[in-house]
């Protein structure tokens, strides 16, 4: 008997991942922490940025990191040196973190601390501008990085990533004097695919824009806590 099942379902192709992501987010909400998923191409400066942010905001927020990497724990070791708890997640051949991997990382994190004591949980994704955009891990905010060395056309070439981001950091702006790149054109391209996201120019090595970036973080945390109060 042949049975087309037309009520299926409205199942998202990624429903299995979505369910796990929502499960993770429910835990984050119960722990009253803000989870940020940090994504970019390899070498855009995710780890360098986190080194500075973790260090400079150490007195403001209790933080931990789930660090995704395909084969090594080098980035995790760099961030651990800053003095925050870091759980490395080695993805093997997978070019992104998914919700199940983050769930496994959370279990390891819980062996070291009580997540309810955290304010911010960082998920540093695998360097890739394509699939991390489609695989939610339960984050509250998506942060995408784009370095000035990558050229101004990347928001148009990888529009899904920049459409999904809540905040885009244009990194390595200290290199602008040496590059034939128009940073305003990069920002304009980002806003063409996502007119509502925040765009902040930063240099982790020189410190440009970090105050604005940290202000954005504080605003997101405050907004989350305000919503929690309303719900409660």
């Amino acid at each position, binding site marked *: 008997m042949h049975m087309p*099942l037309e009520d299926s379902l409205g199942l998202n192709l990624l429903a299995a991942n979505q369910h796990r992501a929502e499960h993770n987010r429910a835990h984050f909400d119960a722990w009253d922490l803000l989870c940020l998923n940090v994504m970019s191409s390899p070498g855009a400066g995710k780890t360098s940025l986190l080194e500075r942010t973790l260090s400079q905001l150490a007195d403001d927020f209790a933080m931990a990191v789930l660090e995704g990497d395909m084969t090594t724990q080098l980035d995790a070791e760099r961030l651990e040196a800053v003095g925050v708890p870091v759980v490395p997640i080695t993805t093997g051949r997978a070019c992104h973190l998914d919700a199940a991997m983050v769930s496994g990382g959370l279990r390891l994190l819980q062996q070291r601390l009580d997540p309810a004591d955290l304010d911010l949980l960082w998920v540093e994704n695998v360097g890739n501008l394509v699939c991390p955009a*489609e695989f939610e891990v339960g984050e509250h905010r998506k942060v995408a990085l784009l370095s000035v060395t990558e050229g101004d056309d990347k928001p148009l070439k990888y529009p899904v990533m920049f459409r999904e981001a809540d905040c885009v950091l244009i990194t390595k702006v200290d290199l602008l004097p040496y590059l034939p790149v128009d940073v305003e054109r990069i920002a304009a391209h980002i806003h063409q695919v996502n007119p509502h996201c925040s765009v902040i120019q930063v240099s982790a090595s020189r410190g440009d824009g970090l105050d604005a970036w940290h202000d954005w973080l504080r605003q997101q945390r405050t907004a989350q806590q305000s919503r929690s109060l309303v719900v409660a």
Partner: protein
Amino acid sequence: MHEVDMTRCLLLSMQEWRQRHAPSVPTVRTVHLQVGDFTCVEPEQLSITWGVATADSWLQGSRLAIEPVPLVGRCLACGGSYSPSAAAGYRSPCCNRPMEEIVSGRELRIRSVDYELRASETTAPNAPKPDPNPDPSPTPSQSAVPSAVPLRT
């Protein structure tokens, strides 16, 4: 090739569908998908990976039928629909606005499944309806099958 991971996730979604909707292991003929143009999925790669991944599983022999869904935006200045393109910087041709609202193109949807029940089950007059309160624990007959389909690469 992230279609491998997309396929892995699709297999898990199908597994969950089977546990909720099908009383026993069905023979799946075709899985109908809608894949938007504004996603990170390449339909041809997904079909190739599907064939490899479902070999020796309960989905062996099934195929994907992928319906592409075009990217359509709505210009918030005039309300008109348009087809955003990279060449035009995703701007609306009518009012030169950025891509503010996406009407379609983000779909990654399992639209329907064509399947047959095994011989002993074919007297069922209608397709099984979703259980509004599905029991998360597998029934004895479901427990005889793996809870997750391994991906062969």
